[in-house]
């Protein structure tokens, strides 16, 4: 059990009452503004002493209010990327970045250069934080936390101020952190794409409570959670294996649902990856289509159909061992005469699968 959190805290009329356990990997806290995410993260960091509760990381109890245990923040070795940058104004960017390293022991210059390069802050090292742009500040804050060599990383919307291109550069790095170093990460984000891509476990927070928790694949393909997630973000996560990198830049993958052709998925043949298929990007056809630009057509069987309040319907499909979610209109569902057990073809365009929707396992 990598992370166990059980907290009760009260702020005026707001009550936090959460209890969850999450395995190693990235645990995403997802929920609306004011639902209590930052409060939870603060309690894990030891910056907030909750009214009651327990926090333990990798079996080490850091907070146990009943037992009178409260490890001070500096002994927790938890890196924290705050929601606002919180850079030290009197220190240069460089000194901000290496601030934590001195407490963590030896500095690793290569690691420093790597992070600085990744974050694109190499030209800013001698500047003071007051002379940085908003996004530059948040990148430095990110680097500072990572370079403190923590045993748990807390990130409160670390990419909110960044442009898409920069995000696309950083997300793979987070994946590597998660996979290569095994560093557990508690990740707050409003972006379902980020969450679905990174998270091993998703914790849906609603009004100070845990509304749903589970593996990312489950929570995102659970039609019941679709509402809390925002309909547009519902989707399934498939496990795939890279088969070949083809000459025209496409990557051939195999899944238990059938072969997939996607644009440039990095990795040598044999690499296992996760592919997020947004429900709204999946089209259904009863006849196998032809003369169509979509490269991926997977045979599937309808498991169930859930009609929403609006004009849409969520169709859960079984394809091989995988679950695929498709969001279509009710009108199409009846036009196609869809019903549980019916065989259909799931059509998806290669380019519909965003780069940030594919991540290494």
């Amino acid at each position: 059990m990598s992370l166990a959190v059980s907290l009760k805290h009260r702020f005026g009329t707001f009550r936090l009452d959460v209890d969850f356990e999450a395995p190693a990997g990235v645990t995403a806290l997802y929920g609306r503004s004011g639902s209590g995410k930052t409060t939870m993260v603060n309690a894990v960091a030891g910056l907030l002493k909750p009214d009651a509760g327990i926090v333990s990381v990798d079996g080490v109890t850091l907070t146990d209010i009943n037992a009178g245990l409260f490890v001070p923040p500096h002994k927790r070795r938890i890196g924290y990327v705050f929601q606002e940058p919180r850079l030290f104004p009197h220190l240069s960017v460089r000194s901000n970045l290496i601030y934590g390293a001195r407490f963590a022991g030896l500095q690793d210059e290569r690691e420093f250069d790597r992070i600085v390069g990744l974050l694109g802050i190499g030209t800013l090292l001698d500047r003071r934080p007051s002379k940085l742009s908003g996004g530059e500040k948040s990148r430095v804050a990110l680097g500072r936390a990572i370079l403190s060599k923590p045993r748990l990383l807390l990130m409160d919307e670390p990419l909110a101020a960044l442009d898409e291109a920069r995000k696309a550069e950083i997300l793979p790095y987070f994946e590597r952190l998660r996979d290569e170093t095994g560093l557990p990460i508690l990740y707050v984000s409003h972006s379902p794409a980020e969450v679905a891509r990174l998270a091993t476990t998703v914790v849906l927070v609603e009004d100070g409570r845990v509304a749903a928790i589970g593996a990312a694949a489950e929570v995102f393909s659970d039609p019941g959670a679709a509402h809390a997630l925002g309909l547009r973000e519902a989707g399934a996560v498939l496990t795939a294996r890279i088969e070949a990198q083809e000459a025209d830049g496409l990557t051939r993958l195999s899944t238990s649902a059938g072969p997939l052709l996607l644009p440039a998925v990095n990795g040598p043949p044999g690499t296992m990856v996760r592919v997020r298929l947004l429900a709204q990007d999946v089209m259904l056809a009863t006849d196998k289509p032809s003369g169509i630009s979509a490269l991926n057509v997977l045979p599937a069987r309808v498991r169930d159909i859930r009609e929403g309040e609006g004009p849409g319907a969520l169709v859960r499909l079984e394809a091989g061992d995988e679950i695929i979610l498709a969001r279509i209109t009710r009108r199409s569902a009846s036009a196609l005469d869809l019903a549980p057990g019916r065989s259909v073809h799931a059509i998806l365009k290669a380019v519909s699968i965003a780069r940030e929707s594919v991540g290494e396992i």
Partner: protein
Amino acid sequence: MTDWLTPEEWQAVALSLRVSLVATLFSLPLGIFVAYALARWRFPGHGLLNGLVHLPLVLPPVVTGYLLLLTFGRTGWIGGFLDGWFGLVFAFRWTGAALAAAIMAFPLMVRAIRLTIEAVDPKLEAAASTLGASRPWVFATITLPLILPGILAGSVLAFAKAMGEFGATITFVSSIPGQTQTMPSAIYALLQVPGGEAAVGRLVVIAVVIAMGALLLSEWIGRMVARRVGGA
């Protein structure tokens, strides 16, 4: 220059400089500590400590000097103890003048530092702690640099006050030329005789020049610090 002021007056100038510098520098660590305690901690004796610090401001200097005489004098209980155990004597020594100046200047120093400590955003300190810095480290690497303007202001106030302190000093350590006769004592003495005004004027000019120098230096350092932190 030597005929502009008497050698004794030059001595007084030199002594005042030494006394003020020593008073300021030696009281600085304690001043920072007390300011920090008053700004950040809640403890039973808080009000009392705060009151004690401000006492030299409220009391007429003569009274403070008298109280110093009673406690730190040769026969006073602290003075006797320090003399007996450490051979540290304040009575009739320049060290006593420095002690008096330090105590008179202490409230000014503490307030200035305390005000800037109160303005430090605890969120920055919290951020430092998550990066592994223990309380003392946080203080040394975050709080202390951020309160530099207050330390500077407190020091220059203390220095200026020390340069001007008279009542407590002369009451505590008298005025012994070359040992405890500071510039204000010399000035006072000159004011007591008819026609001493010209010499007073010269000493006053020197005091003002020294203090202005300290002031300008502190403003300059302050601007450097501000530029480093990079306002605007």
